[in-house]
């Protein structure tokens, strides 16, 4: 297996390039993906390499170009649609929920929508309430779509390539905080998008998380290790369909679970994970399941309030200590 050091942003770009080179039916469409080079520079240089037919700058018409992605997929293309951020995907919600997610089933299986929809997600950059949402858990509520949350450099590329092999719509959420992050890109093999990933072995507690919160959870695990607490860290990475088996196996081993999710606690994806544990591993638990989520408020601009609102390393460690009575 070859490894190369690169950034998350470059890994996404490498994935896009490989997809575009490999299959002439693949094209990229979205706001500022071409001349601007992508809001997060993920498509920098692709317009020059692949031309404006395949790297399509779209107007600020989220509903229309996401819907057009669905139509193009129905028409035999393999569109990668970039919605700049999850915040703006709300304008395309009807197309995603009412069309992309339903047409296969509603048509009695006659139609297939091999659409890949990428978008940045998450808070932590002081861009205030309207630009800091985390709705990947919301989207995971919807049957008919696959929801991926790559947190590592390898997953950033590998999950994109795997998503393109799917016959049904796949939503990929890239935490905006991760784009400049460096990591080792493993070149061998496709990422298995049916499985969660064990990121750290431990015996005392399971930290169940995904996306940008993975790195906070790993840091918390390090901090806890120094105190003699061994946390296992599971990167859920596929929110739908969920790999429940991996979650339950970890909880059966550690007997304790803390879920870390950047969304608001009420009705969060963390609540779903908690329910899965209740249903599948209740008698294996030594204590109640705990959740570390965002404060129940629109995300404010100033750093001290934003930090207080979002899950943080110390908050995660504290939740674990609370469970262990440490």
């Amino acid at each position, binding site marked *: 297996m070859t490894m190369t050091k690169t950034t998350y942003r470059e890994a996404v770009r490498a994935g896009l390039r490989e997809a575009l080179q490999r299959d002439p039916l693949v094209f990229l469409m979205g*706001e*500022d993906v071409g*001349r*601007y*080079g992508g*809001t997060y520079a993920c498509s920098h240089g692709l317009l020059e390499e692949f031309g404006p037919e395949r790297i399509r*700058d*779209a*107007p*600020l*018409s*989220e*509903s*229309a170009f996401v819907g057009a992605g669905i139509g193009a997929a129905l028409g035999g293309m393999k569109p990668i649609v970039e919605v700049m951020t999850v*915040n*703006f995907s*709300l*304008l395309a919600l009807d197309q995603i929920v009412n069309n992309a997610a339903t047409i296969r089933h509603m048509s009695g299986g006659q139609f297939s929508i091999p659409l890949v929809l990428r978008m940045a997600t998450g808070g932590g*950059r*002081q*861009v*205030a*309430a*309207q*630009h800091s949402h985390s709705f990947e858990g919301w989207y995971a509520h919807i049957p008919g779509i696959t929801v991926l949350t790559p947190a590592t450099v390898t997953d950033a590329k590998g999950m994109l390539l795997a998503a393109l092999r799917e016959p049904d719509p796949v939503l990929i959420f890239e935490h905006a905080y991760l784009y400049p992050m460096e990591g080792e890109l493993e070149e061998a093999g496709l990422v298995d998008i049916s499985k969660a990933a064990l990121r750290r072995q431990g015996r005392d507690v399971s930290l169940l998380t995904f996306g940008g919160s993975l790195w906070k959870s790993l840091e918390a695990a390090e901090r806890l290790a120094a105190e003699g607490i061994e946390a296992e860290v599971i990167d859920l990475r596929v929110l739908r369909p969920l790999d429940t088996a991996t979650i339950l196996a970890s909880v059966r081993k550690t007997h304790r679970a803390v879920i870390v999710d950047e969304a608001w606690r009420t009705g969060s994806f963390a609540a779903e994970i908690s329910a899965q544990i209740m249903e599948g591993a209740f008698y294996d638990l030594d204590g109640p399941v705990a959740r570390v989520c965002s*404060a*129940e*408020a*629109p995300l*404010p*601009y*100033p*750093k*001290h*309030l934003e930090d*207080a*609102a979002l899950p943080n390393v110390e908050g995660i460690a504290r939740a674990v200590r609370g469970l262990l009575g440490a």
Partner: protein
Amino acid sequence: MNVPADRNHALELLRQMLRIRRFEEKTAELYSLGKIRGFLHLYIGEEAVAVGALQALGPEDAVVATYREHGHALVRGTPAGSLMAELYGKANGCARGRGGSMHFFDASRRFYGGLAIVGGGLPVAVGLALADKLQGRPRVTACFFGDGAVAEGEFHESLNLAALWKLPVLFLCENNLYAMGTALARHQSQTDIARKAQAYNLPGEAVDGMDVLAVEAATAGAVETVRGGGGPYLLEYRTYRFRAHSMYDAERYRTKDEVEQWKQRDPIAAFEGLLREWKCLTSDDLAAIEADIAAEIDKAVAFAEAGAWEPVEDLTKDVYTERT
């Protein structure tokens, strides 16, 4: 064009444009010092639009703006200190520091944001106007948005709704030829934005947005129609942003040459030139205006620096109305 009848008013237009320019130059400086964070979208180059347009409104009228709204709030009368404190994220800011650059609010001046989802302000403006109409108030709602917003369904839905119900809305499009990195001709099949009004049966008019007097005159005319019960009006101000879209923009999508060409039409320099030509402005006048503005901005920065941070305990305050 004629020598303005009211010299003081002409000087006021110049002063307001300069206030915006100097205020924003200061914010760019403070951004590089890390005092201001997040997104910062500068209005530099487009000052004639907010200044000219807002002359036509009275204090009872409402304003809905975008994330590029520093100038609009300044002209509307929100104190510079309160805006600077908001940019710092301090509790003495116009929105307790919670919104920052993109989300100025000021109820006392009927300034309804500072809304940062492109196109999101238009339906809200329609509703504000509906409330006025239903309550028989002779007020108008001015809604600013960019050329990029014209591609959103909300633009089309709002124009139709406002025209259908004859609502007192001024749709004010600041066409600076780019939606982030996408040039007008790459995002509009019909680049003549004012003409889109025809499709929804409301008047539409394009104005030179680099000419503060033209902006003022056209907007005053539109306000008269709207206030008189004539229903909504679309104005397209043709303008240009001199700076990057936001602080993180490599500007790969336009040439330096193009920017330089537009800078030749700087609305402030142009108006200053006219005033001098008309003998309405001396170098001493200008120096006095600049000194005034510099003092105002120094005071604004001091006000922001002295401001307190909102206590963390208040994080979830005002998510809902407080009940006692």
